[in-house]
């Protein structure tokens, strides 16, 4: 309930700042009518363009994640199944329309007990740096102590 009220308040604040305040400013500003109309059009068109672009970027981001998941599923299935079982799945994948495509992770669900997340990568080993400073004025240097 609290979260809902906070969400509504947040939405109200956003609408106030981004929709109502600009209308008030545009109505109050001393400009010829045609300039006022164009200013209003510019502002609200820009809001629409930015929202649309954010949506498009979000959609591409989802597609990017799906690409990685599909690759990981393909790697797993190539290790566990013979090629004769993987080829028909790829054929189905290619034959389907882009909108109705069943992803490889749905076609080959992860076996029970296996985490869908990839294993964390081991940290890269850094090359050992030779430190010429042993100690300065009694303070320890950066080499092994």
């Amino acid at each position, binding site marked *: 309930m609290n979260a809902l009220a906070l969400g509504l308040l947040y939405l109200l604040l*956003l609408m106030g*700042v*981004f929709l109502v*305040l*600009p209308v008030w*400013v545009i109505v109050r*500003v001393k*400009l*010829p009518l*045609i*300039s006022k109309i*164009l*200013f209003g*059009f*510019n*502002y609200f*068109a*820009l*809001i*629409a*363009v*930015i929202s*649309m*672009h954010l949506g*498009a970027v979000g*959609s*591409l981001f989802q*597609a*990017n994640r799906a*690409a*990685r998941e599909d*690759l*990981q599923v*393909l*790697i797993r299935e*190539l*290790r566990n*199944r*013979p*090629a004769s079982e*993987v*080829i028909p799945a*790829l*054929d189905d*994948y*290619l034959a389907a329309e*882009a909108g109705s495509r069943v992803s490889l992770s749905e076609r080959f669900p992860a076996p029970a007990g296996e985490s869908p997340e*990839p294993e964390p*990568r081991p940290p890269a080993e850094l090359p050992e740096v030779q430190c010429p400073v042993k100690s300065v004025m009694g303070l320890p240097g950066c080499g092994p102590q």
Partner: protein
Amino acid sequence: MLIFPLVLAGIALIAGWPLFFRRWKYNRYLWVMSSILVVALGAWSMLYFQFERSYALHAEAEAVRATRDALESGIDPRELADALEKLDRSTAFEQAGVRARYRLWYEAVREAER
């Protein structure tokens, strides 16, 4: 919370920059130019998304078809899995956009086939 006023100021500046030239007698033409700028921005955004989506779908089909053809031609699936796993762990793949990701996938399959 500072982000809202900053975003609002940015949008107002892009939409209302002719306000800085209010005393100029041809000011109304600047408003028309500003409108054209905003409409062009919207058109660019739409075209960008449509092209990016279309190219990504094409790259996806190419990568999957290359994988299928490689398996059909008799490549060892484990060898192909190793090549793709190496790609999955690479930084270039991690940082790539959707189209580049499929392109890298395609190239990895071609490389494993050789």
